[in-house]
Each structure stands twice: as structure tokens, then as C-alpha cells.
């Protein structure tokens, strides 16, 4: 099972992760930060990894293995 987290202290709300993986991330507009969506855990691992790599503040952590 893949575990996806976003560190709200690091996130600056660029929404780059939402662009790359809209099924996995959403923006909490009240806080201006990204949050994982319920579908994140079942999102393609490579897409999650790309979102994590492209996060400018390295706020996204993806734990698990490619299926």
C-alpha cells in the first residue's frame, strides 16, 4: 500500500502536484497548501513519484513500492 503525505509546513501551494496528479492531490484554499486526496494511495506510483520530484519544496513524501 502506498502512503502519500504532504508536509504543510514546507508546502507553498504551487499546485504543481495537482497539475501532475489531480486524482491524488488537492489544494486546501484556507491554508494555501496541498493535501493528499483519498485516491492518492491508489494512484500510479510513477505519477506520484513525478509529483514528489517536481515539488519545489520537497514537501511530498511517497512511501511504498512500484506495483
Amino acid at each position, binding site marked *: 500500500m502506498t502512503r502519500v503525505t504532504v508536509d504543510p*509546513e*514546507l*508546502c*507553498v*501551494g*504551487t*499546485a504543481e502536484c*495537482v*497539475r501532475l496528479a489531480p486524482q491524488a492531490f488537492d*489544494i486546501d*484554499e484556507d*491554508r*494555501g*497548501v496541498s493535501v493528499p486526496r483519498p485516491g492518492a494511495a491508489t494512484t500510479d506510483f510513477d505519477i506520484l513519484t*513525478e509529483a514528489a*520530484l*517536481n515539488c*519545489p*519544496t*520537497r514537501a511530498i513524501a511517497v512511501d511504498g513500492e512500484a506495483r
Partner: protein
Amino acid sequence: MTGDGLLTKFAATITFDRYEDIRAALFDPDLSRTFDKRSYEEGNIRAGIVSIQHGAVHRARRRVENTQFRADVLRLYERELFPKVMDDLLDRLIDSDRVDLFPIGEMLSVVLAARRAGVEYDAASLDDLRALVRLVDAFSQGAAILDARDPNAVRTLVRDAYEEFETRFVRPAWRRRAEAIARLRRGEITEGELPHDILTVLLLHREDPSLELGDERRVVREVATYLQGGTHTSAQTLVNALDAMFERPDAGRLLERVASDPLFAQRVIQETLRLRPTTPKARRRAEADTEVAGVRIPKDAQVVLDFAAGNRDPDVFGPTADDFDPDRPLPPNVPRWGLSFGAGPHQCPGRAVGAGFPVPAEFVVDDDHVYGLVALELRSVARRGVRPDPERAPERDLRTARFTRWLHYYVRFDRSATAVG
């Protein structure tokens, strides 16, 4: 580095010129843009702006400001607002078959940059647009002060520009937005009815101490930063893209492709940004001992990041890295623009405004795609039959050591060419 109010002693100066090493440095939390305490904290012309904030204040500011760069906002600008503004302005500004394209590029870009920044101006008034462009030129010199040939003259110029900018463009907008925010707080309007711009979100959240926006002049400087950032790079890149194509023996074919294919126009812009970054080098200061790419960096060292060299790293961009090739293949997760928008926490927030979304080699356009405003500008001037002016050479901006900047770029237009299509 000595004189001109800049820090006189660094513990060491370390330069990175390889793509991956520069990226690693950009992500290192101990390397700060607030690298020059004297220049940036005592009477600095850019004091307190987001670009040179570090850590928690920087993140808090970006969370608020990034709301103005969401994909839906970009699509609104690109599909609904910009095309008409662009065509109307080009019709007015290309008033003969030979023109200076650089100020035209600035005028095109400043229209939407001013709207996004949140200043009040008359978009139909060329006087207002020319005044904004003149102020942007001053702010651009301020942003590049570390490479200025006469830094003290730049400081005076920028301080005067802030005064004019605040009085003529920011204060009227401030009053209107403050009234709207007061109405929101009285429950008379919803947040969605507020103007969508940087000034509005700064005023809306200004009481949040984590933003450090208590000083009104800091708000003015922040708005100026977005106006400048949204104008200058776009205008320079439009001209650099044409210059890069004009240098090629197949320039005519390239321009035909640009005119007919917006995705190719976008690749041209992104390839131009790679080879001709508007900021060829960036600098950081080590806030603490750290290590990047196996290199130990002592506290108070200056770190030079050579973007121009990193963007030509053959390990990433291949053996033809020095060539202008908009069709070049790219490794996964390497943007075509290389390091030209930075990376890490300080990555340019407006990169997608100007350059659109990344376009990997196998990319297929979908409904959500954003091409970027400069690609649309390039395509529009290509359709109007742009070509070099053989009788007037372009002029580089010699006020700065940055090699990618122009002051004048003279071109000719085939006035029988169509702008419609």
C-alpha cells in the same frame, strides 16, 4: 566583492556549473537568497520582497501569492483575456513596416502583468502602458543590481520609480481594494467577488504577522516585484527567441512552423530560455555549514550558480547542448527551459505564465494545456511576417553584465501578412 554597500567578505566563493549540482544547491535549505546582509537589510531597494525572503516568511508569502498562478487562472488569461489584448495592441503598435520590437514586447507583457499585480491603469492608454514599462525598466535594473555597472545610480533610479509607482498606480488600487475588503468583512460581498490579483491578497492577509507586511512600502515593493517579474523576462525572451531563430540558416522555415504550430512556438520559447536565461547566474549565501554535491560549503560562503553553463550541460542536454534545437529530446523530469526559472522554494512563480507548462519530447497537447503568453506573442509576430531589419542592428543593454538583455531590437514586418488564423 567590495563597495556599493555590498558585503565585503565571504568565507569562500564556490561556483557550481553542472545541472544536477545547481539543482541540489537550489534545494538546499541552508543556502539563502538573503546572502548579503548589508545590501539586503539596510536601506536596500528590494528590502523585504518575497524574492529575497528565506524560510518561514518566504513560505507564508508564497502560499498567499501562489493563488494567483493556479492553472485555472493561467487558462483564463491565456484563452480569454490575452488574445484580444495582444491583437489590439499589436495593431496599434506595429504602425509601420519597421519597428523596435523590444518595447512592443514590454507593452504586451505589462498589460497582463499589471492586471495580475493589481495596479490601476487604463489598458487603452498607451501613455499609461509606456509609464509602466518605464517603471519596469527601473525595477529590472534594481533586480539586477549585483550585475549593475553603476549600482548607486540604480538605487537612486529605483527609489524614484517606487515613489511614482506608488502614487500613480498603487494607491488608487489600494483604496479600491481596501473598500472591497471592508465590504467583504461586513458580509456585503463574497471573497470570489474581490479582484483577483497580488495586491488584493496581500491586503486581505496583511494582518497575518507571518507575512511581515506591516510596512506599507513593503507592500508596494512586493507589487512592483510581480509587475517587473511578469514583464521583463517575457519581453526579453520574445526578442531572444527571434534573435536565436534569425541566426539560423533555416530561419524562414522555423518562423513558418512557429506561425502554424503553437506547440512548436512554445518549444522555441522554452529552448530560448535554456540558452539565453534572463538571469545567467544566481548567488546564494550559506546560512550554516552545508554540503552540496560532495562539496563542503562553510557558513557565510558565497555560492555562485551558473545557470547559463548548467543549461548547456551535455550530460543532461546531450552532445548538441550548445545548439538551438526546439525539437531536442529531453530526459524525464528535465524541463526544456533548464534552470532558467530556478528550482526549489524560490522557483519563479510565474514560469507558466510566460513559458506555459512543460513540453516533454513526446508530449501531446490536451485540453488543460497552457502554452504561455510569450509563445502566443511569438506566434502572432511570426504570422505578421516578422524579419530582421538589415539596416538597423539591434542594441544590447550595456547597463548590465547580463548577456541576454536587449534595449532595442529592430525588425521589419511584411504588412501583407495575415495576423488572423
